[in-house]
């Protein structure tokens, strides 16, 4: 089974639009620690949908969208009220508001005996990607760009397109305002960018995107896309503008990859296709895990590598410092066995091996001798150590017998304490330079 335009184009397009929009807007939610707002809104729009349906009796119309969007904004308002008036913490406030609103929606459905209408919960949860079939589709992919065929686009895709474009425009035009309101609401307000207004603008767009995406991809995918791509992007970049771009890319990858995995992979295995929205969600999760492990700055692998590098360097420095202290007392050749093991996994023998590879130390029989570069580096370490001890005694007012261990750790930092003494608190000379 391959992808065909009639069955696959609109579902795929809808999914990608929904994913990209939610991925974009989700950045600001995640930054404001409001990640679960998508979850809250997705449940609490139910009364809005029901009321809109009851008023207009038009199941697929714009009224439903407006009703749901209004319900979304109401949710945000109520959450703020509960947070401020009741001094309730944000997660709990969300939980209270959305569960009560959802219950009200359920009650409304039952009360109006609207059970015959397909407002069932699972429709809300999984969406109806499969029903976005397009029966007058051209038979080839090139025929898509014929304007006549584009006129027949399903309403939900048009809506998604509008919301997507509007979200991009918002993010670009109000980038600076959204950024400052996200990172420091207090500062934003004093600078004339009302954090409250930004909050409500953002939430309105989130509500609109959520509701527009529901029909196509269901609430679970929406919730996932509002959170997971943004978090993934945060692991890959440090600045907001790249983060916005990366999150949209990740969302699109999750959407496309998930869709393919849901439709093509099972076909290759001889099985029927699986739920596309679920598959996209899983794909987003997979991408997050990949980023969490392999991100060059924050990934697990990178952190482990950095830590090992650091501990090796510290072990080498410690070895050099000890050899230098022996040298100060007149012993230029230090037998390996005399070096006591240090806490940690790196034995003196291994430290010696590392140091020799760096040309800092040389094996002379069963003993170690510092090379010239080794002496230089060891002097740096010992100087910093003694300077730190002096600093800690003079400025931090620690007792001389308490400073050695702390100095042992601080000596590894590339920071020089501001100390001009010539001897440390124990009377030993601080090497010059």
């Amino acid at each position, binding site marked *: 089974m391959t992808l065909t335009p009639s069955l696959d184009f609109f579902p795929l397009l809808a999914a990608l639009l929904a994913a990209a929009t939610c991925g974009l807007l989700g950045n600001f939610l*995640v930054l404001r*620690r*409001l*990640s*679960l707002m*998508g*979850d809250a809104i997705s449940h609490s729009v139910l009364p809005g949908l029901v009321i809109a349906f*009851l008023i207009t009796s038009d199941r697929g119309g714009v009224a439903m969208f407006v009703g749901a969007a209004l319900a979304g904004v109401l949710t945000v308002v109520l959450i703020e009220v*509960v947070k401020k*008036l*009741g*001094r*309730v*913490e*944000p*997660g*709990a*406030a*969300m*939980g*209270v508001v959305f*569960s*009560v609103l959802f*219950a*009200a929606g*359920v*009650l*409304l459905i*039952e*009360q109006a*005996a*609207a059970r015959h209408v397909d407002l069932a919960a*699972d429709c809300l949860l*999984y969406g109806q990607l499969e029903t976005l079939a397009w029966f007058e589709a051209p038979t080839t992919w090139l025929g898509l760009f014929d304007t006549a065929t584009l006129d027949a686009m399903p309403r939900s895709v048009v809506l998604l397109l509008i919301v997507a474009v509007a979200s991009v425009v918002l993010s670009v035009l109000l980038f600076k305002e959204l950024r400052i309101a996200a990172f420091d609401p207090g500062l934003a307000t004093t600078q004339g960018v009302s954090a409250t207004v930004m909050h409500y603008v953002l939430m309105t767009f989130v509500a609109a995107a959520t509701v527009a995406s529901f029909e196509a991809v269901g609430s*679970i*995918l929406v*919730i*996932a896309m*509002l*959170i*997971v791509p943004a*978090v993934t992007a*945060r*692991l890959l970049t440090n600045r907001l503008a790249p983060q916005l771009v990366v999150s949209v890319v990740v969302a699109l990858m999750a959407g496309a990859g998930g869709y393919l995995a*849901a439709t093509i992979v099972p076909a290759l295995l001889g*099985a*029927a*296709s*699986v*739920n596309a929205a*679920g*598959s*996209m*969600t*899983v794909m*987003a*999760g997979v991408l*997050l895990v990949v980023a*969490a492990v392999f991100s060059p700055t*924050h990934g697990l692998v990178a952190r482990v590598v950095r830590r090992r590098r650091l501990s090796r360097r510290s072990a080498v420095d410690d070895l050099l410092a000890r050899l230098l202290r022996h040298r100060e007392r007149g012993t230029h050749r230090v037998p390996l066995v005399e070096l006591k093991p240090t806490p940690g996994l790196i034995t003196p023998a291994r430290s010696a091996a590392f140091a020799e590879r760096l040309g800092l130390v040389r094996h002379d029989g069963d003993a170690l001798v510092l090379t010239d570069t080794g002496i230089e580096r060891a002097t740096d370490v010992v100087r910093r150590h003694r300077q730190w001890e002096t600093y800690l005694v003079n400025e931090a007012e620690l007792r001389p017998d308490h400073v050695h261990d702390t100095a042992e750790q601080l000596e590894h930092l590339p920071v020089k304490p501001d100390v001009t003494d010539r001897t440390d608190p124990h009377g030993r000379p601080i090497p010059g330079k």
Partner: protein
Amino acid sequence: MTTASGRGTSLTDVADDWPTLAETLRVMTFNGGFNTNVVVLATTMLGIAAGIVGVFALLRKRSLMGDALAHATLPGIAVAFIVAFALGWQGRSLPVLMVGATVSGVVGVLCVQWLLRVPRVHEDAAIGIVLSVFFGVGVVLLSVIQKLPNANAGGIDTFIYGQTAAMAPADSYLMAAVAMIAVLAAALLLKEMAIVCFNDGFARVDGWPVGLIDLLMMALVVIVTVAGLQAVGLILVIALLIIPAVSARFWTERLWLLVIVAGCIGGMSGYLGSVTSALLPRKPAGAVIVLVAGGLFLVSMFVAPRRGVLASLLRRLRLRVKIAVDHVTEFAAERGGHLDVDAVRRLGELRGWGMVLRWWLPGHLRRLGLATTVDGIRLTNAGKDRGKRVARNHRLWERYLVTHADIAPSHIDWTVDEVEHVLDADVIERLERETEAANGKAVPA
């Protein structure tokens, strides 16, 4: 539009639907028929259990963990079904599925913990990620199950995410058992949970197994969630885990009392909600229970003494009045004890008094015996004393703020009470000496 029976299907049509008193009493005393009794009992028990357990989640700022947990159970259910099916067992067996749900829920909690250790991932994001991704996995697996031949997997998700109306007696026994576990755990482990909730840094340093206790608390949430899920469905469980605990928070700050009040509110929500649902037609029990809980929340938020909105408002108003009294008496005392109407009005404008305060104040001063209010305000001796005391505090605070807190003299204003309450005696003495030296006149004692 109406049907033949005259019962309408519009929102506002509630004719013919009200129960009689006899009916009401019967249902409330567990005499409303077997099914109704089961529902009422089970939801009350669930409310108690969820209320108690929800307190700990709330205190750990993890209220929505229940939401994540509830969603995270789906893959476990699907896997359990597949495993059972593969082993030739009956897939739709409740115990099997519940085991799967529990395992999956626990894995979800552990994943949240693990995610929190990834850099730049916050609590809310971790919960949301687990919630959506786990549920996505579950949805995918479910769609696989639907296509399995002879699996008898129809409607498995509604089977699991149960309907309150379709509860079996076994459910109420299960709920009762869960409630007992929750009460017991809370009673036995209150101290441990308290220390972990309020100061986990200290607990860790003091040698308490914080991770283990945390896991225990989460395990309780899992038990309540899974038991509740299959009985009453997702939203109701989440609501009962959050709303009673949040409502109880308005009434008290003491942990043991919090747990008791939350349990009561949860139980009441379950009881009143299910009774109401049984008596009124077309009202699904789950939704009504949540709405009752919401109502109790609103009541708590407004009416609770001290932390309630009304109480806070009253406290603030009283403070504003007291401050206004202080200002008036000081102002008047410095002008010989008499302020004419114009002066009072000017003071009011300066101090930003609202219309209500301006109207209320003279009568209030009279009632307190501080002034007579013929022709403006004329202080009594008590009033003059108060004014002088306020003036003294004012001078001392000015001195303190200028000399000890480095505030510029033009920036001082004050709304505080006796200086003695805040500063100790020798500081006050020194301030008085300095003030006399600076102003050249004695500070009123």
